[in-house]
């Protein structure tokens, strides 16, 4: 069996699995799996860029995804003029002061000679700057959050089209990645891992607590969509007629129409990124990356600037995760910082990359789609299995109730087992690197 046939077969398998879901469960859930699968594939592509191409161990994916989600809010939500007049200038001034403080500290660090004076000056700038920042920042926040807290209580966004948020999400994630990369790259790989893990937690903490920015745990709902609302479609006579022509009732047709619309949008982005990643892989740049990954010392001896290249690819990969995050928030139509969990948004993506085949872009895409399918479907399957196992137990048995109830947690167990099995018996993944 040639390689192409095998790989096509694997992708076809994912397609068949989704089709089976459509027939067995419902077309809506099948499309939902497809849409999130496409987004997961994009995230996996980003991680593959970092891990597969360059061997960078990033476990802060969740943070970049969440930044993309924040971009969706900041770009597309209508601005809240009252909040801006109440505390907008205060916030901007405070942020400016914060930047000036950090810039001043960095300047002092670079310019002053090493010694006790430098430490003292640095401390003075940082501590003083922090208090000035809080003095300007805190009142502004209170004023903004006081503006109809139940409905807004935040600055709002720019009111621009949501599709613009996708590249912006990528840019925001890239900016954050640049900052992290500047400090943490060049350290040992485990240290980079811990640093990224930490930054992701901090980003989530900011999203949860800075209500003026993203309403915190009050969530932002009703983010504008790039596609029409189902309700509007259902009252559109032309749409009803077309739906009737296909033999569908308007409600069903409208939900399918919207989901297929998203799928098409996501597919376009995925294909574009996949094409770029393939081009990068084949280019001299990609070869250099792999050379660095395989033997850093040798690459450095050949005159390659390893740290710079690492920074470059770290930023690029994180930007892709940011784009995917913005897309996901668009699909959900809401930003809910409470739902970002590392197991789901960081480690699951890692399972996707490893299972799919690290170092191979098609592998990452396949892994993203396949693992997402299992992540969703393990729960109903687990429930089914549990009910089968416990069918012999009496109805009122506590063990039975516990087992059936616990089936929901099967997915973590399954993912762990899949990851370990692949690592042990097929460490190259489903589609190995060429």
């Amino acid at each position: 069996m040639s390689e192409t046939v095998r790989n096509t077969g694997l992708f076809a398998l994912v397609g068949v699995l989704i089709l089976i879901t459509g027939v067995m469960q419902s077309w809506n859930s099948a499309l939902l799996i497809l849409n999130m699968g496409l987004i997961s594939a994009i995230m996996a592509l980003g991680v593959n860029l970092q891990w597969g191409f360059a061997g960078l161990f990033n476990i802060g994916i969740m943070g970049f995804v969440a930044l993309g989600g924040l971009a969706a809010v900041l770009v597309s939500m209508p601005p809240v003029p009252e909040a801006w007049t109440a505390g907008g200038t205060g916030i901007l001034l405070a942020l400016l002061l914060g930047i000036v403080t950090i810039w001043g500290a960095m300047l002092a660090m670079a310019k002053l000679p090493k010694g006790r004076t430098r430490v003292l000056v640095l401390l003075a700038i940082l501590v003083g700057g922090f208090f000035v920042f809080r003095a300007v920042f805190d009142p502004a926040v209170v004023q903004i959050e006081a503006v109809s807290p139940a409905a807004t209580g935040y600055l709002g966004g720019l009111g621009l089209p949501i599709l613009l948020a996708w590249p912006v999400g990528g840019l925001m994630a890239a900016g954050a990645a640049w900052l992290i990369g500047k400090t943490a790259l060049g350290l040992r790989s485990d240290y980079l891992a811990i640093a990224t893990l930490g930054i992701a937690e901090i980003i989530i903490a900011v999203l949860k607590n800075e209500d003026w920015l993203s309403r915190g745990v009050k969530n932002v709902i009703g983010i504008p969509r790039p596609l029409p609302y189902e309700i509007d479609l259902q009252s559109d006579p032309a749409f009803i007629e077309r739906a009737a022509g296909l033999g569908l009732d308007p409600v069903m047709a409208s939900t399918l129409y919207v989901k297929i619309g998203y799928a098409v949008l996501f597919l376009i982005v995925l294909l574009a990124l996949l094409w770029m990643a393939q081009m990068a892989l084949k280019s001299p740049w990609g070869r250099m990356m792999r050379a660095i990954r395989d033997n850093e010392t040798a690459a450095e001896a050949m005159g390659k600037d390893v740290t710079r290249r690492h920074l470059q690819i770290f930023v690029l990969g994180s930007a892709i995760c940011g784009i995917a995050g913005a897309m996901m928030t668009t699909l959900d139509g809401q930003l809910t910082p409470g739902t970002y969990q590392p197991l789901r948004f960081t480690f699951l993506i890692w399972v996707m990359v490893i299972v799919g085949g690290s170092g191979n872009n098609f592998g990452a895409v396949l892994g993203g789609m396949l693992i997402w399918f299992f992540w969703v479907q393990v729960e109903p399957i687990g429930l089914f299995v549990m009910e089968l196992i416990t069918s012999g137990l009496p109805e009122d048995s506590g063990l039975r109730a516990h087992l059936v109830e616990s089936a929901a947690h099967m997915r973590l167990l399954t993912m762990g087992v899949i990851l370990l099995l692949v690592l042990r018996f097929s460490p190259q993944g489903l589609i190995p690197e060429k």
Partner: protein
Amino acid sequence: MDFLNALVAIANYVLIPGIAYGSQLALGALGVTLIYGILRFSNFAHGDTMAFGAMVTILVTWWMQSAGIGFGPLPTALLALPFGILGCMALVLVTDRLVYRFYREQKAKPVILVIVSMGVMFIMNGLVRFIIGVDDQNFADGTRFLISAGDFKQMTGLDEGLAIRTTQAITVITAVVVVAWLFWFLNRTRTGKSMRAYSDNEDLALLSGINPERVVVYTWLIVAALATVAGTLYGLDKSFKPFVYFQLLLPIFASAIVGGLGNPLGAIAGGFIIAFSEVTITYAWKKVLIYLLPAPLEPEELVQLLGTDYKFAVSFVILLIVLLFRPTGIFRGKSL
């Protein structure tokens, strides 16, 4: 008098919680550091190992409570702790046999082992959720306070109360006992010495006839004991919630790295550094300042440097500073 009140307030809200939390972090970081020193990888499953050990302890505690076995004024969980340790030991030994040994024999790169530990983390996390669920579990019993705030006020006549919870006292005492035993073991016993030798120089240790598999087994046993003790103490002091243990991974790793990965003394120092920074920076200093400052200078706000939700940021920033200025950690890591 005001000065004394301020001191008591600091002791009550910063010192005592900081010491208790620091002991828990130190025990967790010791486990991470031992694995790093001997098995040479960062074990991401450590948080969930703690959760598993604590879970077994809780299950045995519940059984004891229902059977009417108690420990007087002390929490029953202390009686159940040995069983929890045994359960956790069994789990990590099985994991090592089934998972890690293969990669050890292959001499896989450390980063592969880290990814493998991610898989183990998924499985352990799933197991814990599967068996005990995701909810908060309360299993503390016995006397709640060693000294309650009210008693303290009566005793001393101060306005400010000082409360020491039994769990806090137990945490500190247990941590001291465990750490003392660990150092005695590492420095005085044959096995401990062979562990240190193996960590220092693997080839030399092999040449002098140290059996690596034996060293690894002992390491896992000790790590399981440390993780269970740390997990149970944390659960007793706060509450048991599987998700929280995963989040502890960050401060634990920060402690181990700040102190110097692979260095047990560093792990303890790191644990206390991280714990005290977190508590100090997220504590609202208003009360203390009111006691200390003259009336016109008294603050109106809480004087809290950072919200408690940003405690991760604290451990993270300390971690970054140490990594940037002293990448091997305060105590020069990688020697056991």
